[in-house]
Each structure stands twice: as structure tokens, then as C-alpha cells.
């Protein structure tokens, strides 16, 4: 039974163009996002490799490449952050897997606004291409980091890449905001209006819950980033002074602006930026909850607590942005409030962790690759999450802010945990998306390399941060105590190279399985949710109206012939 998979974009009568470019099929669009993120992650990972190498061997030249200069390092850093945060972590777990699986898991025949969803995808792709174009313009890509703090990002004279490269960055992110908004409208409307009969709110899989809450965050946050980006663009080209203060002298040139506030950008950016962190991680949490239940053959422990925690994280996510600004010059008394609120958001995150562990407890665990990556997610989430309450304290953050401690924190909890969830979702849903199974043996090797790689790369960074190593340094030679940390930095670079080489296993597995992996059964993981319904045809649920009679996680029922009950199985 491979119908719901390869070539499922439509019947053969449709032309090539119609199937691949003008399609409004959510499955084709979901796959499109998957490949978009794959391209972005490859570029982003390559850039991180160049950065690590330049950092510890600044004079090294790689074959076919010129020597990396400090300004190239900053450009790589900016692009690495932008690609990974926007085009990978906020794209594939939400827009990628979400567009593909939300309608299937809800029993809907398509996304609520198929054309809007399709336009959203093409906008995201355009946005990606605009961002990539920065590599070929004079001056190269922006070097102001993914946070683009003005005045560095507002004035072309502030450095190479601050001219056209930054303009392209702003245009690209503006387009990305539009794309995310379009996609999110479809998600919320689908979830509220197109659940199959019987699919009550509390029968939705936790993946759907997290996509839903994430979409609401997107609707509130991305509009604000778009407005901020437009204001910064006006500062750059229309002479306004929102973010550029008066009396500046840059490279010996007087800047004719007056009265803007660089802090205002930071407030606007982080008011978007902190919800953005949850936009990246909530779908990953949803996937993990889902998979732990499937592979432990046990219902999710505390489903309602999980839903509540998801909602609490979504709400609190908008109240903690100031913890990025403890040393920014913001009123230091605001630190008290933001510190407390940030501590508060650690509580629902901890609740989720406890529930994941309790879901595994006493389960008939099947150690397939998706489970391995989900368990890895839990481990990384614990490790990365526990440094959060430390950074939430102004007194400690004053020292640790903008050091490698922060780099370690967010790479473990957002990047690595997020990527582990993406990997587990890929291994899990690959049979549905491409009709074939991925290779388990390669998957396991990939897991071991990535798990140990993640820890060996990012754990030592805590020590660098504790010793006061500031982040975003392109070389170690500038400051003596930083230069003394070269041995550990070299260790990290080697670990990073090994980890990235390990990802070749994944790529080989992915493409080989896509072409000639074993053909998948209708429900290879014996999963109870609707996307594995054996009757869905290539048209999704458009010809079939499932009727939901069961909760999403009814596993391990003794006495039944199988150890799970499909959600649309007849009521007993």
C-alpha cells in the first residue's frame, strides 16, 4: 500500500507544472518546506564548519576557498543564525511537518486555505533565495548577527556587509514574516474548523495542539517583526530616526540622524524574538510527546497537563523578552520582573519533561530510530533547559550574557533539541511522506554520532562561557585570556567537524531510502492517529470522512488483537 505516498501529489492527468508548482495539495507543500529546510540546513551547517575552522586556525585555507577574513566570519555567523533559526527551526517542524500532517491527523481533506498556504510556501522560498543572494553582492552578507542590532545594522558605513547585504537580509526576513503569517492563518482555521467529526479538542494528538498554539504565537509575533523590519528599512533609506541616535561618528564620518533609540529595536526584536524561540521548540515538543507515546506503546502521561503546559508556555512566552536585555542599558529594575517571569516559564517546561519521562515509564519500548532521537531530545532538553534559570538571574547573567555559556544554552535547548525532534519526525513520517522506509541501521549510527557529537560540541562551551569567553569573536588572538582557551576551542571544533561529518550518514540514508528503500506498509509503526489510516488515498481525506471515536493515544490494550486502537476505529 503505497498510494498515500510517492506521487501522491495528484493523479497523472495533471501536468508537471500543475503537480509541482501550482499545487495546493498540502502534502506537496509540506514536502516543499522539507526540502527548503534541508537546503537551508546544509548551507547553515557548512557555514558553521567554516566558522569553527576559522576560529581556531585563522590562517588556514580550505581547498577551493580563499582565506576566511574576520568580516567573512561575521557574515557566516549572521547567515548561520538566520538560516538555522528562521529557515530550519521555525520552518520544518511547523510549516513542513505541520502542513503535511495537520490535516491528516485531524481528518481534514486539506488545509483551510490551500491557495494561501501555497502562496506562503512560495514566499518562503523567495525569501530564502533573497537571503542567499547576499552572498554574491558587493560587501557580502550582513555581519550584524541574526539579531541585527542597530546602529550596526542601520548604517552602511558601519562595516562591510552593512550595505546591500543588510538590505537583502531585511527584505528576506520581511518576506519570511509574510510567509509565516499566511501559513499560520491556515493552521488555526484548519484546527478550529476542519477537525473530523468526533475529533474533539481533547482528542487531538499533541502534535496538533503544539502546531495550533505555535500558529497563534506566529500571528502575534511575526507581524511585530515585520513592522520592526520596515522601521529599520526606513531608518536606512528614508532618513527617519527610529533606532539611530544623534551625534554618531562612524569611520570618521558624521551621521545625520537625531533622537532614535537603539534599545527600541531590542525591545521590538525580542518581543518577537522570545516567542520565536517557542515557535521553534513547541512543535518539537509536540512531536516528541507523540513519538514517545507511540514507541513506548503507552498513552501520553498527563495529556491534559501537556496541553496546559503548551498553552502556558505560549502565553508566558510573550512576557519574558527582557531577559535578553539585562545588560543592554534597559532600566535595571525591570530585571526583577523579567527574572521572575522567566523563572515561571521554566515550570511548564519542567512539567513537560516529567510527563515525557513518565510516558516512558513501564512502556513496552520499541527502540526504533525515532524513539532514540526522541529520548535524545528529552536528554538534551534537560541539559539545555537547566541552564535557563541560571541565565534568568540578572546578577549571574551580567557575567554570562553574550558568552559561550549562552551559546551552549541555546544550542542545546533550541538547536540540538529542535534538530533531534526534526530527525525523529523525519524517521517517523518518512514512510508517509515518501512511501518508503528509512534504513534502521544507518539511522542508529546517525543517532549515536549525533548524540555524542551534540554533547561533546556544546558541553565544553559552558566552561568557555564560565571563564568569560565572549561570543561572536572571529579570532581568539585579540584578548589574552581568550587566547588561552584555544585548546578547548580546538577540541570543540574537532567535535563539531566529526558531528557534521556524521550527518552524511543521514543524507545518504535519506536519499537512498527515497529512491529505493523498502516500500512501507500502511501503518509501519502501528500508530493510532489518523494519518496512518489505511484507507486514505493519494487525495488525503477528500474522499473519505473519518469518524473519530477514540483518543489519540490508546495503546497497549490487553485482550485486543492489536495493542492499539485507531482513532477512527468503531466505538466499542
Amino acid at each position: 500500500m503505497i498510494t498515500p505516498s510517492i506521487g501522491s501529489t495528484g493523479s497523472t492527468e495533471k501536468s508537471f507544472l500543475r503537480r509541482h508548482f501550482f499545487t495546493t495539495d498540502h502534502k506537496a507543500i509540506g514536502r516543499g518546506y522539507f526540502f527548503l529546510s534541508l537546503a537551508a540546513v546544509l548551507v547553515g551547517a557548512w557555514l558553521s564548519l567554516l566558522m569553527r575552522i576559522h576560529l581556531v586556525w585563522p590562517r588556514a585555507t580550505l581547498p577551493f576557498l580563499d582565506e576566511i577574513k574576520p568580516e567573512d566570519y561575521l557574515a557566516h555567523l549572521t547567515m548561520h543564525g538566520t538560516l538555522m533559526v528562521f529557515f530550519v527551526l521555525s520552518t520544518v517542524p511547523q510549516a513542513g511537518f505541520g502542513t503535511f500532517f495537520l490535516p491528516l491527523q485531524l481528518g481534514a481533506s486539506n488545509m483551510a486555505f490551500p491557495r494561501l498556504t501555497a502562496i506562503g510556501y512560495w514566499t518562503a522560498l523567495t525569501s530564502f533565495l533573497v537571503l542567499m543572494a547576499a552572498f554574491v553582492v558587493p560587501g557580502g552578507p550582513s555581519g550584524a548577527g541574526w539579531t541585527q542590532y542597530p546602529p550596526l545594522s542601520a548604517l552602511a558605513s558601519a562595516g562591510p556587509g552593512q550595505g546591500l547585504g543588510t538590505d537583502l537580509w531585511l527584505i528576506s526576513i520581511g518576506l519570511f514574516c509574510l510567509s509565516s503569517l499566511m501559513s499560520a492563518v491556515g493552521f488555526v482555521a484548519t484546527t478550529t474548523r476542519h477537525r473530523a467529526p468526533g475529533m474533539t479538542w481533547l482528542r487531538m494528538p499533541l502534535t496538533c495542539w503544539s502546531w495550533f498554539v505555535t500558529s497563534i504565537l506566529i500571528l502575534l509575533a511575526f507581524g511585530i517583526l515585520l513592522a520592526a523590519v520596515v522601521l529599520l528599512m526606513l531608518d536606512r533609506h528614508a532618513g527617519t530616526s527610529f533606532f539611530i541616535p544623534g551625534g554618531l561618528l562612524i569611520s570618521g564620518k558624521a551621521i545625520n540622524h537625531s533622537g532614535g533609540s537603539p534599545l527600541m529595536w531590542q525591545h521590538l526584536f525580542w518581543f518577537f524574538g522570545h516567542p520565536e524561540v517557542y515557535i521553534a521548540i513547541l512543535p518539537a515538543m509536540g512531536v516528541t510527546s507523540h513519538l514517545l507515546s507511540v514507541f513506548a506503546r503507552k498513552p501520553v502521561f498527563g495529556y491534559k497537563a501537556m496541553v496546559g503546559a503548551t498553552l502556558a508556555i505560549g502565553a508566558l512566552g510573550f512576557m519574558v523578552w527582557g531577559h535578553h536585555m539585562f545588560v543592554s542599558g534597559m532600566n535595571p529594575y525591570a530585571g526583577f520582573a523579567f527574572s521572575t517571569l522567566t523563572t515561571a516559564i521554566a515550570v511548564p517546561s519542567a512539567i513537560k519533561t516529567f510527563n515525557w519521562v513518565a510516558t516512558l515509564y513501564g512502556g513496552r519500548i520499541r527502540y526504533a530510530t525515532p524513539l532514540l532521537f526522541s529520548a535524545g531530545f528529552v536528554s538534551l532538553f534537560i541539559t539545555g533547559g537547566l541552564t535557563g534559570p541560571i541565565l534568568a538571574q540578572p546578577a549571574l547573567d551580567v557575567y554570562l550574557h553574550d558568552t559561550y555559556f549562552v551559546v551552549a544554552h541555546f544550542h542545546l535547548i533550541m538547536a540540538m533539541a529542535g534538530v533531534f525532534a526534526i530527525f525523529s519526525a523525519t524517521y517517523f513520517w518518512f514512510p508517509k511522506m515518501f512511501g518508503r522506509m528509512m534504513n534502521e541501521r544507518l539511522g542508529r549510527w546517525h543517532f549515536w554520532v549525533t548524540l555524542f557529537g551534540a554533547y561533546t560540541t556544546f558541553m565544553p562551551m559552558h566552561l568557555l562561557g564560565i571563564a568569560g569567553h565572549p561570543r561572536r569573536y572571529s579570532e581568539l588572538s585579540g584578548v589574552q585570556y581568550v587566547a588561552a582557551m584555544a585548546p578547548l576551542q580546538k577540541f570543540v571544533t574537532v567535535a563539531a567537524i566529526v558531528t557534521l561529518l556524521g550527518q552524511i550518514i543521514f543524507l545518504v540514508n535519506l536519499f537512498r531510502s527515497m529512491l529505493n528503500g523498502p516500500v512501507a506498509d500502511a501503518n509501519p509503526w502501528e500508530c493510532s492517529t489518523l494519518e496512518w489510516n489505511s484507507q486514505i488515498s493519494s487525495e488525503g481525506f477528500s474522499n473519505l470522512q473519518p469518524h473519530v471515536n477514540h483518543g489519540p493515544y490508546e495503546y497497549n490494550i490487553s485482550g485486543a488483537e492489536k495493542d492499539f486502537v485507531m482513532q477512527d476505529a468503531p466505538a466499542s
Partner: protein
Amino acid sequence: MSRALRLALLLIVVGCIYLFLAHPYWFPSGVSASSASIDYQFRIAFWIFGALFVVGHLILIFVLSKKPQTGSKISHGSWRLEVTWTLAVTIIFFWFNISGERLWSKIMPSEKKAGDIEVEVTGAQFQWYFRYPGADGVFGRTDVQKFAKPDEGNPLGIDPGDPSGRDDILSTSMVVPAGHTVQLRLRAHDVIHSLFIPAMRFKQDTVPGMEIHSHFTPTQIGNYEIACAELCGMGHYRMRAVVRVLSEEEFQRWIKAQETATASH
């Protein structure tokens, strides 16, 4: 596979414990009045969260080694457990939070006392400048767009027409006496920088278009490095300076020498 996963997690825990106990790099020894209490707070954090990390992973390993339950025992959840662990983490996190807030309220407020040393710090791409008000105790007016002449020793654009600016002392390293609170005025005239003195446990952004006040109290004589901690452009990584903490007498001597040098200039 279960055993392999448990072993891997155990290896990771043991490796991390080893890494942090061996810690090839750690805080530079603290030499400011508040560094002892900050270090103490970090030590508490380190042990609490280190313990949670270890316990969390041990529980995960234990759970993976548990025998499967049979049908009727399968649990859907338990509000009692939910409430228990929610309360437990809330108590731990907020106890830690409150201790942190108290520390912050101790070290953050800044009141000027007699005997404080006033220093103006200016971040510029890619150099730190430190200015002392001189004998009159008043900083001269600056206008960087009009008067800045880095080649003639006036990178900050001190107004030559302002008498209070004539005795201002300009230095490329921060020279301060031990035991006195240093009151900083932080400024920047191009992009955002951040004054980071690890040994003093001090960091504060310098933001163009505003003046930020902050303070620290050095307690030990010596030279300590300053790094820039906010991305400011190409030379960010080499925007280094030094804090020279002198004894009271040496500092007075240094000030005198600087004042005569400025006067003769």
C-alpha cells in the same frame, strides 16, 4: 538497544561530571566587592542544577530499564503526581529566583559616595577610551561630530572652548585605586559595545545616544583584561583594554602625572 541507550546516557552523565569537576577553565578569581557573592550564587546554581541534571538523567535511565507494565496498570496520568512535581520545581526554581533577586537588589543600585572614582567609558570601533574629570571634578563638554580628532589626541571630541574640559584626563586603560567604588558613565558614539571585565564580574553595554551609569568596586591590585561583549563589527574580537588597579598612593601619583601631562599639552 535499550542497554546501549542507557549506557550512552550514563556515559554522557559521567563525562559531563568529569568535565565540570576537572574544569580546565573556570571563573578568573574575583577581585571586586560583589564578586564573592556572585560566585557564591553561581556555586549554588551549579550544585542545584548540576544535581538536577544528574538526577534527571538517572531517572531517564531508570525508566528505560523498567519492565513493561501490563494492560490494566497502564497509567494515563495522575493529577497527584502532576501537582507534586509542579510544586517541587516551583519551590526549587523560585527559591533560587528569590535568592537571585536579593543578590541583584544588593549589587545593582548605585549611590554615589564621597571618595568614589568617576570614570567615563566610551566604546568606539574598536577601542576603549577612559576619561577622568580632572582636578575640577567636571567632565568637559563633548561633540564628537565637530571636534573629534583622533590624530591630535582628541578622539572623544572634547570641546576645546569648554574650560572644564581642559583638565580632563584621557587614557586607553582604566586606572583605578583599590577599595574605591568606580562610578562609570558609559557611552558610545558609533555602535553598541559592551564593557566586560570578567575579573570584576562586570558587564554593561555602551549604547550610543544614551548615557548608562554603573559601578563596581575593585578590591585587589593588579591588571585585569577588558573585552568587548557586544558584536560591534570586524574588530570586535580585538577590542581589548586593561583595568589597572593600583594602590591609593600609586593612583594619586598616576593622576598627578596625568594632570601635569595634560596641562603641558
